[in-house]
């Protein structure tokens, strides 16, 4: 049975209030049957330094990515992963993590590829929980093994591939990387290692809205009015648009995918997980440099 949703007014103000919970809600429901809390971080050891009591770890790289092909795990591996972490198909899963839920949102997007019915984000993630002096533990969690059906991944509704993006040119695209990556000055995030793109710039027509603008300084999501002002007022999106979001490998853009899909309620948003590490290396795909969507700035 699904665990009740959060009645918090801020949570209720978003388009899909069943996809978000507050820290107070989680503290109240922790340990309830049917609820599994999972932490997903950039750093594979951060969970082990202290996590929400009873939570399990999900690593974006070692758990959710296929170890050989550049792709996500298939239905068989996902079912095994879920079973091992004590997650059943009817479990309510609450995901949280570091960096304003950057990696937790990525995990949520992967859960959505498998159509997991009830998966939610903890607003503010790890930092918000710690900021309120709520408990962490180093005690390992040992969930009872669950049974999870093998479900085929349904990529089409929320995942875009390179060919899809080429066919999408001229329609709304959001580039969520830093302004320097967008303009082509940098091939990687400031302060992060180069991950191998041969060309810099952005996909023609993409509007630049760095992902972190959707979050407050404390890591929680901005209000629905503020989000509308950013994505509709500044970036010019409409709720019925078909939108493709991208970043470098599809993780930062999962955060924006969550904002557009679940907080603003856009029904047609896809994440291009090939993102710049594919586009910036692909032969003869169009690229624009400079700070404007169609180029021109500084040239």
């Amino acid at each position: 049975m699904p665990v009740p949703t959060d009645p918090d007014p801020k949570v209720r103000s978003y388009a899909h209030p069943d996809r978000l919970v507050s820290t107070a809600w989680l503290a109240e429901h922790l340990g309830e049957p049917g609820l599994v809390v999972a932490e997903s971080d950039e750093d594979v050891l951060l969970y082990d330094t202290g996590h929400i009591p009873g939570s399990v770890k999900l690593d974006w790289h070692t758990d959710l990515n296929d170890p050989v092909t550049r792709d996500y795990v298939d239905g068989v591996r996902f079912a095994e992963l879920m079973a091992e972490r004590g997650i059943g198909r009817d479990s309510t899963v609450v995901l949280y993590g570091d960096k304003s839920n950057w990696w937790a949102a990525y995990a949520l997007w992967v859960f959505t590829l498998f159509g997991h019915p009830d998966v939610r984000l903890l607003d503010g993630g790890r930092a918000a929980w710690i900021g309120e002096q709520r408990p962490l533990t180093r005690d390992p969690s040992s969930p009872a093994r669950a049974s999870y059906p093998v479900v085929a991944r349904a990529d089409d509704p929320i995942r875009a591939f390179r060919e899809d993006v080429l066919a999408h040119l001229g329609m709304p695209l959001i580039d969520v990387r830093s302004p320097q990556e967008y303009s082509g000055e940098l091939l990687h995030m400031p302060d992060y290692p180069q991950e191998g793109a041969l060309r810099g710039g952005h996909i023609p027509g993409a509007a630049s809205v760095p992902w972190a603008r959707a979050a407050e300084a404390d890591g929680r999501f901005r209000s629905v009015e503020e989000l509308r002002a950013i994505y509709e007022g500044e970036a010019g999106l409409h709720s019925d648009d078909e939108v493709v979001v991208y970043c470098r490998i599809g993780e930062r853009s999962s955060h924006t995918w969550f904002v557009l899909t679940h907080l603003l309620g856009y029904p047609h948003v896809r994440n291009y997980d090939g993102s710049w590490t594919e586009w910036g290396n692909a032969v003869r795909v169009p690229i624009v440099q400079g700070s404007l969507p169609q180029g021109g700035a500084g040239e």
Partner: protein
Amino acid sequence: MSQPLPPTLAELVEDFAGVQAPQRLQLLLELSDELPELPERYAGHTELLERVDECASPLFLAVEVDPQQRVRLFFEAPPEAPTTRGFAGLLHRGLDGEPAEQVLAVPDDFYMRLGLATAVSPLRLRGLAAMLARIKRNVRAQLVSGGEATG
């Protein structure tokens, strides 16, 4: 086997290689916890330290070669980046106080023997390789210049 590793580093490699992947993460966490604080002359002076850009999280290091040609290593990495701290802890425990020549002889790919690729992913291991490369470059430069500390 290629070059022999300095004894403490060799022991660490054996510890890692001798256990399963989840325990390797625990070993790395211990090394992260045990990374010593910077001494007073470096604390709060990141301008004296070298930034390792290849790490996903900020990491700073300083390398000294003492008059006996032994290598002293100093690291700073935030607690929110335990993997990076763990790599620093591994190199600190394994190489601090070792003769410069032995440090230079550590194979660049020694980390492949730790069995961490499956536990932390090959991508994240690049930070460890980069730290070792920078340590060696500093040691080499100081041997040439006669032991002056460079950050």
